[in-house]
């Protein structure tokens, strides 16, 4: 039972149900309390009015009777009758008026008397009205002559005193008749009045009871209303506070969430609610009402912007499958640059995600979430960079592994000194053409020696870079006018070379650490050799010069399709001061010997020589006069005619001068910058720098060069070096 009631009440207990209840109660209050209450109240009021009227009329029959009796008595006593007659007349007219009023039908809203007193609109007297009027009409008949009386009913007589005159006697008769009739009629009126009064009274009591009932039910309904309204208000408050709570929670979430969140409407305008993180992500505050386009405009390229806007728009098309277009989101990873305000930039990577927002199946917004993925992207980039770097390193590493560590580290030291020299030369202030041009030769020599050595060691990555540098220098040399602008490509190549040398250096040092970390490697031959070398007196280490030259000779011969063997003697005696000079000269001389001196194998055989050419490199300590470095090859020797021919062609000499040159003067041409007898430049020769470089290097340390040759038999260069080398490195410190 209870549960059934609960089942019925349940829907009523919802706020809407309660509201309906309030309306019903309100209407029933009007229907049950107000309308009947008003009617009952007017009924009671009208009944009271009727009772009052009745009360007034009720006393008239006895008054009439009393007046009649008083008149008769006074007449008998020959008294004054006018007063009683007036009384009679007043009562008569009042009763007559009252009766008419009570018996007349009431207009409209007169009370609804029931039973004895009639129904709505009926006279107060109700069903008694006819009897009342009838009795009263009978009474009026007898009263009429009395009421009509005028004059004095007496006549004065001396003897008999006062006597009734004729009219008096008539009056006396009429009075008696009236009294007789009244004795019967008037009580009848009284009885009727009493009956009416009783009826009215009981009606009144009933109405009052009803009114009380109505009042009580009104009170009950009012109470119920109060309870209901209270419940409703409470419910409403609860609803509001839970709404407020929900709003607060939403605000809390938006404030604390790390992602930037906002909604875009169909026009791609940002809504008013967005997460606080957005302000940090974009370094601005004016998001509400901002067009998505304006948000992106300053941070992505135009092309990305156009694609991004299109992308968000296609999300609105119902055809588009949201999941299947995620991969083409153009804002999946966007690099943004935020001006940090101090001339520097803050670069961040943002990831935008787009989600459709549907309300009742209808798409209303696109939810955009933006997160900062800088850390992730940086890590990925780092990984990639280290991977590609590692790849490059593996290549270089393979090259380096073939090289004797001592050779390699001496090469690196020399090269970085050369780079410093190059940079120092570049740095020297220069304003005019001549000063710029002067730099070229020095730069050439420096980079050429690095190239030669790199080639000797088989470090092709360095060799090709140096070669490119040389190419630039070469074209600058041929340029008619030089300015600082022309040197920019050189600096960039220098930068590249330095970077590359550095990375090779890093590798080498890592490799050497590897050697230290693994002592068992000592058993390998290289390591044993190294140990032996360390035993040699300080400053007399060959430091791999001979080995470098051997490798160079083998490579140059191979690349030039020649066969040659190199024999180095006395290199363990090269003082530390001369190590670099000797090596540089050696590289150059060996190269020249193989490229220019040694003939092709077939040619050698045809002139009766051994198929394999021979190059000898000898370092000698010649006591007080210093040292000698001798380079000799068993090749074709130097042809004065060929030298003159080339010199003529290059414009070094005139045809006339060519004729007058002796052998020595002709050989001197070899040492001029830019002279080479090989037509096309290869990595090994042909830039016309070889002999010139040898002379330069020797001069730098205060030595001199002499040439001896025999056509078809040999060429011998002898470099005489003073005991103490002039410090050529001084320039490098500049």
């Amino acid at each position, binding site marked *: 039972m209870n549960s059934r009631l609960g089942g019925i009440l349940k829907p009523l207990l919802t706020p809407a149900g309660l509201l309906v209840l309030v309306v019903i109660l309100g209407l029933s209050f009007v229907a049950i309390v107000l309308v009947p209450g008003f009617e009952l109240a007017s009924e009671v009021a009208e009944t009271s009015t009727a009772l009052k009227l009745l009360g007034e009329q009720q006393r008239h029959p006895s008054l009439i009777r009393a007046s009649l009796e008083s008149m008769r008595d006074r007449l008998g006593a020959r008294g004054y009758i006018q007063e009683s007659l007036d009384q009679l007349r007043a009562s008569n007219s009042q009763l007559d008026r009252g009766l008419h009023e009570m018996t007349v039908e009431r207009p409209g809203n007169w009370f609804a008397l029931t039973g004895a007193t009639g129904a709505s609109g009926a006279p107060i007297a109700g069903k008694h009205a006819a009897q009342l009027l009838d009795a009263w009409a009978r009474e009026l008949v007898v009263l009429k002559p009395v009421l009509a009386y005028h004059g004095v009913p007496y006549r004065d007589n001396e003897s008999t005193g006062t006597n009734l005159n004729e009219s008096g006697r008539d009056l006396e008769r009429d009075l008696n008749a009236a009294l007789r009739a009244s004795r019967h009629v008037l009580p009848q009126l009284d009885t009727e009045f009493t009956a009416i009064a009783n009826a009215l009274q009981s009606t009144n009591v009933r109405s009052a009871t009803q009114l009380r009932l109505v009042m009580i039910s009104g009170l009950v309904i009012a109470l119920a209303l109060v309870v209901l309204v209270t419940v409703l208000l409470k419910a409403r408050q609860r609803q509001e506070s839970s709404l407020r709570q929900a709003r607060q929670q939403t605000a809390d979430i938006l404030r604390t969430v790390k992602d930037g969140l906002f909604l875009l409407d169909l026009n791609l305008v940002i809504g008013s609610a967005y997460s606080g993180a957005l302000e940090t992500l974009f370094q601005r505050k004016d998001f509400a009402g901002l067009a998505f386009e304006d948000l992106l405009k300053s941070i992505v390229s135009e092309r990305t912007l156009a*694609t991004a806007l*299109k992308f968000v728009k296609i999300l609105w*098309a119902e055809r*588009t*499958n949201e999941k*299947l277009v995620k*991969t*083409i989101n*153009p804002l999946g990873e966007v690099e943004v640059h935020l001006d940090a305000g101090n001339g520097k930039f803050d670069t961040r990577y943002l990831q935008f995600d787009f989600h459709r927002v549907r309300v009742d199946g209808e798409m209303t917004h696109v939810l955009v979430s933006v997160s900062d993925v800088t850390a992730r992207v940086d890590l990925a980039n780092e990984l990639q960079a280290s991977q590609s770097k590692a790849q490059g390193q593996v290549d270089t590493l393979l090259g380096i592994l073939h090289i004797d560590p001592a050779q390699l580290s001496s090469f690196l030291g020399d090269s970085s000194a050369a780079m410093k020299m190059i940079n120092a030369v570049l740095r020297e202030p220069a304003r005019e053409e001549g000063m710029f041009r002067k730099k070229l030769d020095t730069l050439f020599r420096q980079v050429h020696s690095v190239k030669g050595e790199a080639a000797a060691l088989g470090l092709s990555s360095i060799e090709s870079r140096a070669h490119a540098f040389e190419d630039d220098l070469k074209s600058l040399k041929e340029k008619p006018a030089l300015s600082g602008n022309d040197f920019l490509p050189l600096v960039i190549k220098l930068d590249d070379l330095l970077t590359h040398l550095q990375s090779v250096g890093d590798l080498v040092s890592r490799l050497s650490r590897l050697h230290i970390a693994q002592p068992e490697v000592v058993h390998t031959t290289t390591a044993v050799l190294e140990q032996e070398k360390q035993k040699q007196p300080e400053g007399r280490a060959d430091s791999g010069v001979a080995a470098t030259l051997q490798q160079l000779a083998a490579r140059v011969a191979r690349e030039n399709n020649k066969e040659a063997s190199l024999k180095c003697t006395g290199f363990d005696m090269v003082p530390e001061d001369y190590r670099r000079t000797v090596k540089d000269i050696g590289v150059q001389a060996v190269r020249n010997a193989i490229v220019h001196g040694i003939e092709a194998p077939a040619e050698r055989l045809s002139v009766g020589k051994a198929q394999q050419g021979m190059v000898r490199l000898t370092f000698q300590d010649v006591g007080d006069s210093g040292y000698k470095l001798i380079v000799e090859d068993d090749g074709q020797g130097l042809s004065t005619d060929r030298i003159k021919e080339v010199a003529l062609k290059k414009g070094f000499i005139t045809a006339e001068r060519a004729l007058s040159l002796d052998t020595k003067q002709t050989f001197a041409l070899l040492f001029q910058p830019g002279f080479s007898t090989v037509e096309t430049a290869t990595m090994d020769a042909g830039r016309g720098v070889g002999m010139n470089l040898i002379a330069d290097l020797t001069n730098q340390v205060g030595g001199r060069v002499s040439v001896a040759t025999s056509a078809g038999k040999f060429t011998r260069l002898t470099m005489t070096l003073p005991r103490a080398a002039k410090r050529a490195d001084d320039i490098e410190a500049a």
Partner: protein
Amino acid sequence: MDDGPKRSLKLMIVDDSNIIRRRIERSQQIARLEVVGAASNGREAVELFRRTQPDVVTMDLTMPEMDGVECVQELVAINSKVLILVVSALADKATAVDAIEKGANGFLCKPFTDRQLNDALEELLSEA
């Protein structure tokens, strides 16, 4: 889609690469799909589309004759109910977005695995 007795849906493959066409053909394990044709360029695709009236199309973007974006537009004009999955390399997101704008329903990035292809097609059919 009603789950009752499955009406076979027709699939057309548009791709200028033979290898890709055959791969898509082979990897078709969705029972509902039956390959009704393969075209190697846009023009051919439109012609074949009219003839075979497929329900689903996989569409390459860079093709000779008529490119994928234009082809998508034509196919949707012929039958607005067709489901089109763009299958292309991700070099140019803008073009892919263009294709979706013209009425393609989804995108699958080349290269793809059989599983990715089938997942994408299932997803395409589930939304319809």
